[in-house]
């Protein structure tokens, strides 16, 4: 079975006080993409994961981890 990629995107976004649309605007994706990543429906590419981490001033490892 594939390992699940977990994230704390919602918590990190809330800590910044941003809406999904505001984070989407900073990263350059649709609000739907932010929402599906937060809900773990969609696994982001490495590029998007890095962009999200940069926007939220976190490392990728702080934002995403694998559930083993």
């Amino acid at each position: 079975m594939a390992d699940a990629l977990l994230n704390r995107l919602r918590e990190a976004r809330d800590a910044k006080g941003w809406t999904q649309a505001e984070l989407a605007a900073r990263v350059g994706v649709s609000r739907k993409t932010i929402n599906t990543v937060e809900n773990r429906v969609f696994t982001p590419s490495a590029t998007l994961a890095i962009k999200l981490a940069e926007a939220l001033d976190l490392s990728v490892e702080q934002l995403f981890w694998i559930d083993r």
Partner: protein
Amino acid sequence: MHDIHDIEEAERMGRARSRIFFVLAMVFFAGQSAYFASSPATRDSHARIGAWLILVILILLLLATGGFLLKGRRVRDLLNDETVRMNRLAAQATGFWVTIIATLVVYVESIFDPVSFNEAVHIIVTLGVGAALISFAVRERRAHRLG
């Protein structure tokens, strides 16, 4: 960085696209059901074949580009972002498998009941293209519903 207005516009248009594609898929299948239900004598008129061909090309164009070609680049990029591209790839894979299965079914069927070349192409392309379109529309609708 994108403008919040672009994000909201892309959101609105993305939702509209998923609804339009779903309705287009239903209209496409309904039209082809009527086509196959009609008598072979009236079925193969140039007008009907032409209408089907135009619709198929339009759907392929929509599936390949995501539509909204006249919108500005910033909004178009948002309308074709990572999740949309993944959904489109998955929909194309669905279309591929439906095409292969339909081809095999038509091949076996033609052993018992001969099917003309034109009919076979019409059935296979209709099912493959229609399946890809409906698969994309359903995936997009599901992603939007989560919001």
